[in-house]
């Protein structure tokens, strides 16, 4: 059995470079605003799924405290993923298909300013071959960018044009900047931020009752590459391509695509993998390059793609999330308006 499921409310906190309040306090306004926009209360929520990573704050079970934003008394039905919030949304979507509830909440929080993310990203790698080298996400991304440049698929100039579109500035001048890890310059790497985000999902008639222009989930799928980057062809993103195919990206024109491209070259690779033409408005929000709250970025992409339908007048949009080195895991969510 399948049910029609839509995003009916989304909110995120303004990204900050260093949040001083607690993670739960940071999340509060996002959850409140998402509920308010959907026109529901906490009591209406049948299932909650949260997302965060304890390695960001360096405190075991840090995620438990953020549950307090749900007012979890009497006890609620909930779950947590140590992943991007897009996967929390996926779990909530699956849960709604059970058929017994019609409203679900997915939220994510990430405070990256307390840790050295390049170190933490290294510890997430396999413990035998990669982690002892302390190879980090920027170095691995540079390998992928180099592979793409070597294959002739992209150029540093094309990367600079992505950066200029998102961050402003002159693409030619950007190429004069020094490398951080060749061929990546500082502006090719994401601006790390602290933020929280929340999305309300509702089914069928409930969604129509709550929202004038629900963003219906027409297709959603997630795929992963092999764990070890050394066995992959880094010039391809097969996981993104297959997830896109399964989510039905090609079944109609996409107007807006919000891609979790942390690095400039990733946007170019994802455009190819998802078959997005020059007419698609990619990352009007600025995307993950402009603001990367770890474990929140993907959920924000889906929320922004949904808002383009809910109050932006668009009819067909796409939200993408990724995690792991060199776009290892990819989730694609195709949204449609009535």
């Amino acid at each position, binding site marked *: 059995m399948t049910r029609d499921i839509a995003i009916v409310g989304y909110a995120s906190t303004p990204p900050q470079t*260093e*949040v*001083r*309040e*607690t993670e*739960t*306090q940071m999340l*509060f306004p996002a959850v*409140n605003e998402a509920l308010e926009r959907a026109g529901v209360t*906490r009591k209406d929520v049948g299932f909650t799924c949260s997302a965060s990573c304890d*390695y960001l*704050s*360096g*405190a075991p079970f840090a995620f438990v*405290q953020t549950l*307090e*934003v*749900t*007012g*979890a*008394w009497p006890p609620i039905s909930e779950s947590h993923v140590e992943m991007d919030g897009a996967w929390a949304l996926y779990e909530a979507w699956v849960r709604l298909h059970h058929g017994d509830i019609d409203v679900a909440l997915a939220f994510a929080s990430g405070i990256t*300013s*307390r*840790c*050295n993310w390049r*170190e*933490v990203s290294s*510890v997430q790698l396999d*413990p*035998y071959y990669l*982690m*002892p080298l302390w190879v980090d996400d920027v170095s691995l991304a540079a390998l992928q960018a180099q592979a793409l440049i070597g294959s002739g698929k992209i150029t540093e100039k094309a990367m600079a044009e992505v950066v200029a579109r998102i961050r402003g500035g002159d693409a030619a001048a950007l190429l004069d900047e020094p490398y951080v890890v060749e061929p990546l310059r500082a502006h090719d790497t994401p601006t790390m931020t602290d933020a929280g985000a929340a999305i309300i999902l509702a089914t069928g008639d409930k969604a129509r009752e709550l929202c004038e222009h629900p963003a219906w989930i027409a297709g959603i799928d997630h795929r992963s590459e092999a764990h070890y980057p050394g066995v992959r062809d880094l010039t391809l993103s097969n996981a993104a391509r297959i997830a896109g195919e399964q989510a039905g990206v090609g079944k109609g024109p996409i107007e807006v695509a919000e891609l979790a491209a942390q690095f400039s070259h990733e946007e170019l690779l994802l455009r190819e993998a998802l078959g997005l033409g020059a007419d698609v408005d990619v990352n009007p929000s600025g995307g993950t390059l402009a603001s990367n709250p770890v474990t929140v970025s993907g959920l924000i992409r889906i929320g922004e793609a949904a808002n383009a339908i809910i109050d932006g007048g668009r009819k067909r949009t796409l939200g993408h999330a990724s995690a792991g080195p060199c776009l290892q895991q990819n989730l694609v969510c195709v949204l449609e308006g009535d």
Partner: protein
Amino acid sequence: MTDQQTDEKVAFMPQMVNLEYRIVTSPIHQRFDKQMREGRIVGQKCPSCGLVFVPPKGFCPLCAIVMTEKDEVAVKDTATVTSFTVITPIQYQGQKEREEYVLANLILDGADSSIGQQRIEGIPHHDVRMGMRVKAVWATPEERAGEEGGGMRGWGLTAAVKHWEPSGEPDTPREQYQEHIL
């Protein structure tokens, strides 16, 4: 399948991992820390449900509404043990404990949320019990003023209370604290 014996040695690969974090004390916990150094335990009382949370959170986790300094109430430095553990320390780098010790969960008089990880002293370990009444033993004002005198990451109390010891009052009946047993 039976266990197979082998003379082959198991290979070990030492791998030192060091991750550094910055501890950022939130404004609400900085304020709590300051009050503890002054010798006061201050929580927040929810204007909706009336429950008192210590340490304060800046919101009521049950009503999901924001709380501020306007909702502050002082609670007492006497408490009831709701649960406890006798801990036998294992030795690892950085471990300072050598002997068995007791950590307890306490419900402070005037509070509705319990606090964990509170050290109980001044009583043989086998006599510690649920319902036992205890009182705070504060660090001296000089000790509290020092760098090590506070410290607040959002849970427990701060170093301003060194430990708790029996107050000699009759035990609290179970019905009065059973909702706070972990």
